[in-house]
């Protein structure tokens, strides 16, 4: 029997190597259980609206009007939509050439890229060039594009945080990689961190940029959670700001690509697929090549671009919708902060569980100190220990998490990632349910020979 054209054996090896735990084994099992009628709490992915967070009103009004521009001609439109939403819809439609249904410039609509540049300038205090800002169908597509540009072959390496970003172990990894003949091209930072939530300080960013300068690395700064900050000690500072603060030579030499999205923050508009990347100190010819690849996909989706415009240029004081917009935004952010605390405290109250506070982003990443007998049981079941734990957690409570092995962790140390996104009123019950499962699990598998160590 001759092999069929697309048998597993003849697939692209790189595809086979890909693993994406966020929608991997645990998620698939959770979906199966859901089909069987079990109530599942999906905390595997940062997907706020799926857990009841409501969309902000103003952007939805604007995009609905852009979607159906004939409404703007109707004399009664003012009954259904506030005047500033109507004005804003007209503004965005005027930035397009043909409305939402036309391919835009492959980099995104120039008018919206200008709004993004203005946002960046207000945020950081340095001017930003709209020509170096590319809108993308979600930040993920932008990340793929940049990595594809950087990586020539398997001898090219990218430093990524595992799972949090400690500078010193990055240095170690870099030197080790080089000794193995790998050319390390770039370093990724995620700030605020995913899954760990930590926010980098100005000093941290300073050191990182110096490191990149010395080691000739591109810095890829994933800043998609920049609106999600739950403490005051370390507010969000962009990598670009620190870079430019440093002045020449570093400020002019280090190559930086910064990523942002409408999927996170207090917007949570994951389904729109709106994002951008901004390039700093990238030579013009390289930018041309990046443009060329972007052009093959023609253009990012226009509604997503409008969401981005609205996010970087929200209602201002005095606008009709301003108060409502601020109230909605504040409510979401303050609730996220409270939930970050509830979850951290809840995990820390559990046996053999230690959890750092979620300083930012949307996740909690408790360490689960699994007793040796649990680890043995996992081995017998053919599962990684944290996968074993998470599957048991899922079956017992319906809480669907992502095992820490999906993010990388030190050998012998286990975590799970959950989001802080379940509705606030559901949180106490969820944490109680978790505690009950965990403490019973530990009871079942504990002995006194020792635990997985920190």
């Amino acid at each position: 029997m001759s092999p069929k054209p697309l048998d597993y054996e003849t697939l692209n090896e790189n595809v086979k190597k890909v693993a994406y735990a966020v929608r991997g084994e645990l998620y698939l099992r959770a979906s199966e259980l859901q089909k069987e009628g079990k109530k599942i709490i999906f905390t595997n992915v940062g997907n706020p609206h799926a857990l009841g967070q409501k969309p902000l009103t103003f952007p939805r009004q604007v995009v609905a009007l852009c979607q159906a521009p004939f409404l703007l001609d109707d004399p009664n439109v003012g009954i259904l939509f506030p005047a500033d939403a109507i004005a804003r819809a007209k503004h965005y439609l005027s930035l397009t050439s043909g409305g939402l249904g036309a391919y835009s410039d492959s980099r995104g609509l120039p008018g919206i890229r200008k709004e993004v540049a203005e946002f960046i300038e207000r945020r950081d205090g340095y001017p930003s060039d709209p020509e170096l800002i590319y809108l993308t169908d979600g930040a993920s597509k932008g990340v793929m594009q940049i990595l594809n540009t950087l990586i020539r072959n398997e001898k090219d390496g990218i430093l990524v945080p595992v799972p949090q970003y400690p500078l010193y172990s990055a240095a170690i990894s870099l030197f080790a990689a080089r000794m193995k003949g790998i050319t390390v091209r770039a370093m990724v930072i995620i700030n605020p961190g995913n899954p760990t939530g930590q926010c980098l300080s100005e000093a941290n960013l300073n050191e990182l940029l110096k490191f990149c300068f010395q080691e000739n690395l591109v810095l890829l700064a994933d800043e998609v959670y920049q609106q999600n900050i739950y403490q005051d000690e370390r507010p969000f500072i962009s990598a670009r700001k620190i870079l430019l603060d440093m002045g020449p030579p570093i400020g002019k030499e280090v190559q930086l690509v910064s990523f942002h999205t409408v999927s996170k923050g207090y917007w949570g508009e994951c389904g729109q697929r709106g994002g951008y990347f901004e390039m700093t100190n990238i030579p013009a010819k390289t930018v041309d090549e990046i443009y060329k690849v972007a052009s093959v996909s023609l253009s990012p989706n226009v509604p997503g671009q409008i969401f981005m415009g609205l996010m970087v240029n929200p209602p201002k004081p005095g606008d009709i919708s301003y108060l409502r917009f601020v109230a909605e935004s504040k409510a979401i952010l303050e609730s996220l902060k409270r939930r970050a605390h509830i979850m951290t405290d809840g995990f820390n109250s559990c046996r053999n569980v230690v959890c750092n506070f979620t300083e930012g982003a949307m996740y909690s990443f408790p360490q689960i100190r699994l007793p040796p007998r649990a680890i043995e049981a996992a081995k017998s079941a053919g599962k990684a220990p944290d996968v074993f734990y998470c599957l048991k957690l899922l079956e017992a409570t319906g809480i669907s998490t992502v095992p820490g092995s999906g993010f990388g962790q030190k050998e012998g140390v286990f975590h799970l990632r959950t989001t802080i996104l379940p509705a606030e009123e559901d949180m106490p019950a969820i944490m109680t349910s978790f505690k009950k499962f965990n403490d019973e699990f530990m009871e079942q598998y504990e002995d006194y020979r020792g635990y997985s160590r920190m």
Partner: protein
Amino acid sequence: MRRFATERAKRLLLASRSPPSAFLCSSPAAAMDPAAGVVTVDTINPKVLKCEYAVRGEIVSHAQRLQQELQNKPGFHPFDEILYCNIGNPQSLGQPPVTFFREVLALCDHPPLLDKSETHALFSADAIARAWQILDVIPGRATGAYSHSQGIKGLRDAIAAGIADRDGFPANPDDIFLTDGASPAVHMMMQLLTRSEKDGILCPIPQYPLYSASIALHGGSLVPYYLDESTGWGLEISELKKQLEDARSKGITVRALVVINPGNPTGQVLAEENQREIVNFCKNQGLVLLADEVYQENIYVDDKKFNSFKKITRSMGYGDDDIPLVSFQSVSKGYYGECGKRGGYMEVTGFNAEVREQIYKVASVNLCSNISGQILASLVMNPPNVGDESYESFSAEKNAILSSLARRAKALEDAFNSLEGVTCNKAEGAMYLFPRLRLPQKAISAAKAVNAAPDAFYARRLLDATGIVVVPGSGFGQVPGTWHVRCTILPQEDKIPAIISRLKAFHEAFMEEFHD
């Protein structure tokens, strides 16, 4: 041990002058010279350098510069506006969107509208009903949430039903992958199929350059098969066989066959018999059939009909186990022309479970396609029916657009055929004309002198003289020594006479200048 290593690393990093790397490694020269920078044209992925996409290439950049000049220096050029005939982007040239679709999308974008009584005055009743139907299949009615990575199940059910309606054969919702336009789906399949440059994909020449670009980006080989211009861009199995054998003799494993039906840039609609031959060819040769069917609703001749390859394979008695077939559809074309929405899907049949898992996995890394585009894809495959409140106005809009496209296709085809040395095959479907230019030797030499392909030279001159932007045929591939340009049929009907007269005037002058 780890702490010791950390301390050592700390000391290395904080060491005053020399970079730590100097202690430990022999990096390539570029890494040692901070001024060189990591990301230069010399150090990026060579596949990126290799890839080309003429539809938004050089000539379009020049057109954009001219457009700027028109704004800043009016009267400087012999034309008032740039007419972009380079890209299948109907709504950018004034084609209106389909009202019913936009009504439903607006309601889904802002569901609180459905709770207001005033909404009934502004939206049709069936649009409201459809919006409710759609929201009911979206978990939590949350259109802002990531969906299932293949797309919302209820929408896939609707699309499968639409496919079954169209073909008369059932479709499985689990075979459907909703994507941000058809292009990402094509990329996914190329990624799956390409292990190295020894993997080849048979592509029509001329072809829509997404295929050549995607193959280049994924490091594979494009195996060309030539469509026969003298027989209306006919697809001959003998040509397929010849190219396949040629490739194999060079050590290339040919994995798949791309067929674009209706064709882009060529516009031909395949005859059923031809399609059956193609199916058998793929089956006998062990090839995946990649059927780009995004222009399925753009048919301008009465003697041809669109038949999906899915329908053809099933009508031949081939089932899911017999032939791997991937069919691509998009919301960007047809009569809806919703390019900016990025909606589309691929229907994947004939693959085993293991492979389907891999396809799912690749889709999952991007989480999901944009929800609004998913909704639109379900609407396109399930438009208003006879009896629905919007049916008549919907049909009127649809027929107006399609009949206008047919008229414009004919008018431009005749215009090109009236030009000296130019022949143009009929656009039976799609949105393009691909006239062949027989350029005098003097023109060809002039092109060489400025290092341009003759068709690029012609296109540039056309742009500079008239503001009309077309894409040189070399961007699509053509028989060596022949020259073409691709021109869309999309400018609004009232602009067509002026375009035709300017085109004629330019061509006459050009031929006069370069006559032998």
